[in-house]
C-alpha cells in the first residue's frame, strides 16, 4: 500500500518535495520557528506550565494572605510587584492568586482531559473495531452519560462526599468520556473497513494490538484535536461549577473560581474577573493553535503546508499565476 509513492492525486507532498528519500524531515523546532503563531502559543503554554510548577515557590503565602485594608486596589505600580495586578476584596494579590490558580487549574483540567481521553478513546476504538453488540453497548453508554445531568453528580459528590480536586477531576472526566468515545468509534469504524486492518485480522492477531498499531495512529490526531477543545471546555465547566457554588472550594483558588467570584465586581473592580478570564483564554487559544500545528507537523500528508513561505500561504489553491 505504501509503495505507491506517486502522489499525483493525493494531498501528499508533491513529488520529492518535503520528504525526499533518505532526507531528514526538518527538525520540529525549525518548523515551529517558521510559524510565529505556533511559536508564540508554545511559549505561552511553556510559561504557564513553568509558572504553575515554580510559581508557588516564589509567591509563598501571598495568594491567601489577606489584608482587609488593601481591599480592591486597582492594578498599579505603587504597591510592589504583587500589587501589579491589583488586589481582590480581601486584599489578596491578584497576581499571586493567578500564579497559584494556574497550578490548580491545570491540575484539574489536565488530568480530567487525559482521563476522559484515555478511557473514552479506548472504549470507542474497541467498540468501533468490533462493531455489533459491543458497539451499540458502548454507544448507548455514551448516550446515557450524555443525558445524565452532570450537575447532579457534581452536587452529590461535592455536598455529600468531600469536595476535593480529585472528585472534581473525576466528575469532569466522566462527563466528557462520551465525546471521545463517539469520535474514536467513528474513526475506527471507518478504518475497520480498510483493507490493512482486515488483513491483519485474518492473521489471527488479537484485537488490542491491531487497535494499538493500526487504528490508534490514525485516530489520534482527531482525538487530540478534540482533547484540546475539551481542555478549554473543562476549564470553563470548572468555572461554571464555581458560578453555581460547587466547584473548587476556597481557600483553594483556580482561574475558574476567580472568574466566578469576580463576576460580582465586574463594574467596580474589573481586574479580579477579567485577568483570570484572559488567562483561560490565552491558554486555550494557545493550546488550540499548538494542537493545530502539531497535527500538521505530525501528518506527513499535511506537513508541507508548514514549509510554505509566508507570502504564499494565502494564495488560492488553484490556477497558479503565471510569472514567466
Amino acid at each position: 500500500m505504501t509503495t505507491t509513492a506517486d502522489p499525483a492525486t493525493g494531498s501528499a507532498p508533491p513529488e520529492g518535495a518535503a520528504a525526499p528519500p533518505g532526507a531528514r524531515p526538518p527538525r520540529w523546532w525549525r518548523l515551529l520557528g517558521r510559524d510565529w503563531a505556533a511559536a508564540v502559543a508554545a511559549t505561552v503554554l511553556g510559561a504557564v506550565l513553568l509558572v504553575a510548577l515554580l510559581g508557588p515557590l516564589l509567591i509563598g503565602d501571598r495568594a491567601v494572605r489577606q489584608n482587609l485594608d488593601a481591599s480592591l486596589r486597582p492594578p498599579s505600580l505603587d504597591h510592589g510587584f504583587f500589587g501589579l495586578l491589583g488586589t481582590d476584596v480581601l486584599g489578596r494579590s491578584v497576581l499571586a492568586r493567578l500564579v497559584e490558580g494556574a497550578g490548580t487549574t491545570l491540575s484539574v483540567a489536565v488530568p480530567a482531559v487525559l482521563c476522559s481521553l484515555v478511557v473514552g478513546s479506548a472504549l470507542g476504538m474497541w467498540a468501533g473495531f468490533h462493531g455489533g453488540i459491543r458497539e451499540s453497548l458502548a454507544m448507548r453508554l455514551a448516550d446515557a452519560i450524555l443525558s445524565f445531568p452532570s450537575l447532579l453528580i457534581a452536587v452529590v459528590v461535592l455536598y455529600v462526599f468531600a469536595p476535593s480536586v480529585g472528585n472534581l477531576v473525576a466528575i469532569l472526566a466522566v462527563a466528557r468520556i462520551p465525546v471521545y468515545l463517539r469520535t474514536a468509534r467513528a474513526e475506527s469504524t471507518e478504518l475497520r473497513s480498510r483493507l490493512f486492518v482486515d488483513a491483519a485480522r485474518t492473521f489471527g492477531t488479537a484485537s488490542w494490538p491491531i487497535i494499538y498499531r493500526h487504528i490508534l495512529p490514525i485516530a489520534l490526531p482527531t482525538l487530540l484535536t478534540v482533547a484540546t477543545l475539551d481542555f478549554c471546555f473543562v476549564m470553563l465547566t470548572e468555572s461554571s461549577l464555581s458560578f453555581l457554588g460547587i466547584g473548587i472550594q476556597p481557600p483553594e483558588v483556580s482561574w475558574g473560581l476567580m472568574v466566578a467570584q469576580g463576576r460580582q465586581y465586574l463594574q467596580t473592580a474589573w481586574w479580579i474577573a477579567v485577568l483570570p478570564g484572559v488567562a483561560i483564554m490565552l491558554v486555550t487559544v494557545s493550546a488550540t493553535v499548538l494542537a493545530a500545528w502539531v497535527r500538521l507537523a505530525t501528518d506527513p500528508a499535511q506537513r508541507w503546508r508548514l514549509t510554505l513561505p509566508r507570502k504564499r500561504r494565502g494564495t488560492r489553491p488553484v490556477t497558479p499565476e503565471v510569472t514567466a
Partner: protein
Amino acid sequence: MPASTETETRAEERPADDPALEVRGLCVDLHTAAGTVRAVDHVGFTVRRGRTLALLGESGCGKSMTAQAIVGLLDPVAEVTGGSVTVAGTDVLRLSPGKRRKLAGPVLSIVFQDALTALNPVQPVGRQLAEPFRIHRGLSRRAAREKAIELMASVGIPEPRQRARSYPHQFSGGMRQRLLIAMAVALEPDVLLADEPTTALDVTVQAQIMRLLRDLQTEHRLAVVLITHDLAVVAQRADDVAVMYAGNVVETGPVREVFAAPRHPYTRGLLDSVPEHARRGERLPAVPGSPPELSAIPAGCVFQARCPLARERCVTERPVLAPVGAGRSAACHFSEELAHA
C-alpha cells in the same frame, strides 16, 4: 512527427496536423522547507489529435506535476514559473482562472489514477457524470442526467439507469475507473491527460481500461497524454514517448524507434533492465542508484551520477534536448555513441 493516419470522422476547424497540445519550456518550482527547487525543468512536447504521447518516468520525476501544471491543478506549494501550454491555439497559462475554467472539460481534460478518491463519495455517480453538462452546456438537471446515463452506457457500465443512482463505493475498481474516464471525455475534449489510469487495478482490468481509452480516442480523435511508469503500456499504447528524469525530458520520439534504439543512457538503462519482453504491470525496473534529490540536482547532466557513460563534460555542461533523427530528440552529449553501440 508523422501525421495522423486515422480517418477523420468529423469536420475540424483546425488543420489536422496542427498540434492539439503544445508544451514549451514548462518550468514548475516547488517551495519547500529547504528552499525553492525546480521540479519540472523546461519540459516540452507536442501531441496531435488522435495520437498518444506517453510521459514515461520513475516516481518523482515530475511527470504528474507536468500534467497538473497543464490542467492548472497544482498544489499551492508548486508554482509555474515559465513556459507555455498551448491548447487550441491559446496559451492557457496566460488565461484568467475564469477563462481557464471554460476550457476545463470541453478542451482539456484529465483522468486521475485512484478512482475511489477521485470520485466524490457522497454524491451519486450519475450526478457527478452529469456535472460537466450542467457546468458547460447549461443543461437542465434532467437532460444532464440523461446524458450521464448515455455516457455510462458508452463506457460499458451495465444497467446505467439504475447504477446512476449508486455511490462510488458501490462500484468495483475497474468500474470506477470507467466512470472517471467517462467523466473526462464527457464533453469530447481535444486533449485528454491520463495520469496512471490503471495503476490501482489488477492486470485483466488494466487491459480493459486501456482498450476503453483507445476506443474513445479513436471515436473522438482525442490527443492523449498517457502518464505512466509502465514500459509495456507505452510499447503497446503510445505513438510517441517522452522520457522524463529528474524534472527534465531526456528523450522523445516515436515509441517504436525510441524503444528499438534508445539515444539516451537512461532510456537504455530502463529497457535493458527488462528481461526480453517487458511484462505488463511491472514496476519500472531498477536502474542502479537513485534519482538525485531535487534540492541537489547537479549543474551538469542530471543523469551523471547513474550514467555508465558519464565523463568530465557531463559534470560541467548540461546537454540540451537536441534532434537525433527524424522526429527524435535526446539530451545526451554522447547520444551518437549510443546509436552505434
